């Protein structure tokens, strides 16, 4: 019953995303032919143009285009990028792992910054450490990623000669060490931005849990402060922290376009961006749908985590 509802809403969401991206792409003036040929497109004879439209399938009705695309996706045919001479599935299989790796690294960094600072800030409200937390989170929220990214890039490259992103991208399998060096700065930029909401969530949740009766009761039982903070306070503060982390993770899967572009990381965000520039409908549509699916899966994972953390969720 529950599972069925879950699957139905997931399918509904994905279908909605598919319709939306399909319509929006076609609402943009121009198509793949004009984008590919530029000003030369004006010189096409009607016959040539018709032939090209037929080649790209643009001569069919929107209805047919939409459902043949969806039908093909279900069989694993994500479409073909004429520009890159590769199937979209192949492109995605290369870019998705890169993005996932970047997202995981960013989240880990964000948690390492946000959770301890949040706990520190909550440990004494309105103190110097609380102010420090506020400053860090305000900076994380207000400094735009492109600014931080370009600043870091120029500072590290110019002053320390550290510019691993200047050379061709190496995957984790190719050269793990180079890969991690290339991932360091982008993950830092993304992680810093995400650390802010995590810090704030942690601070609020910890403050709330700390004033709960059971924390006082644990104290009355003689539980030392450190153990109290970790076992009783942090444990109960985890649910909102996990929620926030899950949301940010989902956002990272599709939203790292700018950072990927600046650091030349061939992730899925960049794939969408190139697709939009070239008006390659198949690339954009299929990739966006993959991102949406990933987002949904991350949400499912977050829900599953609740069950691990909170026995009351398991019961209901």
């Amino acid at each position, binding site marked *: 019953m529950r599972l069925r509802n879950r699957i139905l809403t997931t399918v509904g969401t994905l279908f909605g995303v598919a319709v939306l991206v399909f319509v929006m792409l076609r609402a943009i003036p121009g198509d793949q032919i004009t984008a590919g040929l530029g000003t030369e497109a004006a010189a096409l004879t009607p016959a040539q143009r018709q032939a090209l439209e037929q080649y790209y399938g643009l001569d069919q009705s929107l209805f047919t285009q939409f459902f043949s695309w969806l039908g093909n996706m279900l069989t694993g045919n994500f479409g073909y990028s004429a520009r890159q001479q590769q199937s979209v599935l192949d492109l995605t299989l290369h870019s998705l792992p890169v993005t996932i790796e970047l997202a995981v690294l960013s989240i880990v960094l964000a948690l390492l910054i946000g959770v301890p600072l949040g706990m520190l800030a909550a440990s004494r409200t309105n103190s110097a450490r609380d102010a420090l937390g506020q400053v860090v989170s305000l900076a994380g929220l207000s400094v735009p990623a492109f600014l931080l990214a370009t600043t870091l890039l120029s500072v590290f490259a110019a002053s320390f000669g550290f510019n691993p992103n200047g050379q061709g991208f190496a995957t984790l399998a190719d050269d793990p060490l180079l890969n991690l060096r290339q991932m360091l700065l982008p993950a830092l930029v993304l992680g810093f931005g995400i650390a802010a909401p995590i810090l704030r969530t942690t601070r609020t949740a910890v403050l709330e849990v700390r004033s709960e009766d059971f924390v006082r009761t644990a104290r009355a039982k003689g539980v030392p402060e450190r153990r109290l903070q970790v*076992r009783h306070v942090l444990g109960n503060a985890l649910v909102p922290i996990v929620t926030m982390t899950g949301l940010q993770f989902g956002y990272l899967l599709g939203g790292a376009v700018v950072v990927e572009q600046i650091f030349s990381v061939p992730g899925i965000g960049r794939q969408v961006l190139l697709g939009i520039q070239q008006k390659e409908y198949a690339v954009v549509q299929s990739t966006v749908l993959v991102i949406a699916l990933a987002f949904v899966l991350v949400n499912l994972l977050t829900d599953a985590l609740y069950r691990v953390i909170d026995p009351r969720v398991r*019961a209901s």
Partner: protein
Amino acid sequence: MTPLLEIRDLSVAFRTRRRDVTAVENVSMEILPGQTVAVVGESGSGKSTTAAAVNRLLPANGRITGGQVLFDGRDLVKASAREMSAIRGAGIGLVPQDPMSNLNPLMRIGDQIAEALEVHGVATGKAARARVLELLNLVGIPDPARRIGQYPHEFSGGMRQRALIAMGLACRPKLLIADEPTSALDVTVQRRILDQLEQLTAEMGTAVFLITHDLALAAERADVVAVMHQGRIVETGKAGEILAEPEHEYTRRLLGAVPSLSSVRVAEPERAAEDLVVVEGLRKVFPIRGTGEELTAVDAVSFAIPRGRTVSIVGESGSGKSTTANLLLGLDGATSGSIRFDGTDLAGLGRRELFAFRRRVQPVFQNPYASLDPRYPVGKSIAEPLRVHRVGGAAERKKAAAELLEKVSLPASMADRLPHELSGGQRQRVAIARALALSPELVVLDEAVSALDVLVQAQILELLAELQRELGLSYLFISHDLAVVRMISHAVHVMRNGRIVESGTAEDIFDHPEQDYTRELLAAIPGAGPSGERGGERGGGQG
């Protein structure tokens, strides 16, 4: 004998926005080893603060401003945080008030009890588990081997409180602070748990520092009773002596206000009157989420409310009394059966008719803190029903609010105040004034005085009786407190598991209960049992 705990001239202050407010002032008392000492007082009297100062668990804005707390010869006021950690749990155990909020919801019951043993190095691993099983057994939790691995949400309130007692006594402390240990529980559960606690502490030789608002309960359970009022101890003495010969004026007032089974009734004698409400064969079934099963909350309930009379429904939590009240208020629809109000069946009413019906029936709920909008000035809250039902203009409504305030004995100037500036009793008066705004015929009082201190409770009950005489109101009074019910009711229905098990006049029910369940309820009232006999006639029909 040297005292186990000696409090000398203890003062505690709370820092508020502007200044320090003294909550406890020069309090001195002592507890001998194995002795039970009760501190009695109303909310805000400083009794819980005194207890919290002993194991140094005051809220963040509270601090000890003077005096000593000598436990086993050591001054706890001067002890370091580390020393206090070692004493808490091992030397001084705590049984807190609210079983629902005092257990960590993410930890198994067994682990939480074992933690007390582990942090003090009493036992770990298998030895700790064995000891926890033994403790669960001692506090009367059946099937401990299964219960040890369960989480708090799988326990009932009474079971949770037993687990908390096990936790407080795990390391066999010399002193146990029990802060209103049973006030959140039903009376019959209350009695069983207090019995268990008494037996266990006697066996372990543990002294008990009992905090309670209930004078009868204190007298029944403690060797020595101290009465606190406005941060000071006004009277201390042997339990029996305090009840028999209260010396301080405040203690006398407190004793006089305690509703007891022997209290004089506020209500007038029964006269024939036509029925305003007739309930017949009422039944309400709720689906239980996720299981497909159903819960019958109210079943085959029939009763009538005559005009100008008070009809009470008593029962423990889960008995269906509040569901019955909601059905009568038209807040929820019955599964079957009928409620006729002034001859009209509620079930047949359309939206507009239901709206008109609501003018004639008004509720007053238990929690005066939650039932008033914190952003509305009192006058606006009182006038709101008038606004909703489009009665009068703004000026008339303002005048009406002032008159209503006077009717509930509050100054008309209070209309501009916000709820947080009022005391609990004042807020409940405001809630009553709001209920009266539309001149209803029936007022449904759902545990309307349960959250109030005894003195305030007595005043509100008097007010209700006065309003009934003056305005000819009918009341449906829902309560778990039999003593209060006796004071105010013309007719009483005892509910259990969704059914009415016994009905009669207040005299019938209290002096000649026919059902075992009613007898059990009566016997569970502190002060009604064999050890708590007080002056005056006793209520229960058995010893």
